[in-house]
């Protein structure tokens, strides 16, 4: 077994070279390179965490903006609805008032027309009376040779017209 047989002749060489070479490994690799590698990993983890946090923040602010937009939108919609309602009410009111004024105009015209018809009728009746009175005067003079005054004839005609 060389490990035991050679032990006394090789131990110093093994110790020396192991210390030299493992020392190189420890100081160059372990102390020099490992911390840099771990720093890289740490930086990457930090960057990922930061990016995730930034993404979360952006998402939160987007949610907030959306909420604000929704509120504004609702307010706008309400305002528009109110405007429409107001316009509708205004239009209705003006229509009603115009309708009312038209109605009164029509009523007035109707009344005027009726009045003029009545007047015409009265005039016509008076004309008829006149004509009838003259006719009656004429007829009585021609038939009975009685001179009837205009006034008598008229009253007689009136009496006859009233009695039908």
């Amino acid at each position, binding site marked *: 077994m060389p490990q035991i047989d050679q032990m006394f002749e090789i131990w110093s060489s093994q110790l020396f070279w192991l210390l030299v070479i493992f020392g190189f490994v420890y100081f160059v690799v372990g102390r020099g390179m490992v911390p*840099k590698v771990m720093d890289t990993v740490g930086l990457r983890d930090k960057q990922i965490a930061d990016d995730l946090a930034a993404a979360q923040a952006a998402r939160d602010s987007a949610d907030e903006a959306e909420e604000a937009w929704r509120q504004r939108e609702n307010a706008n919609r309400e305002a528009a609805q109110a405007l429409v309602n107001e316009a509708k009410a205004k239009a209705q009111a003006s229509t009603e008032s115009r309708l009312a004024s038209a109605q009164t105009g029509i009523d007035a015209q109707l009344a005027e027309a009726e009045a003029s018809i009545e007047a015409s009728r009265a005039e016509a009746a008076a004309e008829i009376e006149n004509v009838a009175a003259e006719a009656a005067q004429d007829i009585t003079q021609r038939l009975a040779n009685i001179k009837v005054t205009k006034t008598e004839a008229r009253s007689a005609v009136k009496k006859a017209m009233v009695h039908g």
Partner: protein
Amino acid sequence: MAVAGETAKVDPMYQFTVKPLLGENLDIAGYNIAFTNSALWMLITAVVLWVFMIGGMKRELVPGRWQMTVETFTGFIDDMLEANVGKAGRKYVPYIFSLFMFILLANLLGLMPLGIFGVHPFTFTSHFTVTGIFAIISFAIVLIVGFAKHGLHFFSLFVPSGTPLPMVFVIAPIEFISFLFRPFSLGLRLFVAMMAGHVLLEVLSSFVIDGWNAGAGFGLLVGVPSFLLMVAICALEILVAGIQAYVFALLSSLYINDAENLH
């Protein structure tokens, strides 16, 4: 390897022989520090690990495969220390990472089938002169951190909390002995596991060679099953290479936890 006709004998332990390559007589204060095949494979392991780590130094925000692999390993060690030691474990990441990767790559490189190119990998983690040093370094860190942080209060480690007073005198020596055994178990576990696998592979390969040398009948009866078993054991050895490196790093971090947080 044995040649047909000779007394076919494969020494399964020969692979662990340490041979000086350079400076056979190089001494420091009377101690030999020859550059051996063991030192060469330590150097190769360190260079492979360094090259592997360069791929992780691109520091890109979106990592490529190589960078991702390096980051997976550092993250693995970081998580292990975080789970076993807590926040204070972070400062041991360089040491535990170096330990884990160095042992892991040494184990794996020792398994590489480079023999077909005429290069024989040397698994230096199959030498307790190496694993023992790792164990002593880990244990020294535990002692230094423990005494620096807690002073003499560190000895309360040997009295588990909630022990009734009469039991303290029984339990404390047992705990103390188990504590002292830690570096030995830590070093021996890795050395034994790596050596056993390599010996097993070598013995089975000698079965394949000797079986075929003894004739086609023995070759089919012994050589072929042994070869199939070798393939399976190679897969198992790759697993063992990872597990032993993990166990070494995990136990080191658990012992460091004792030093950091006592109980």
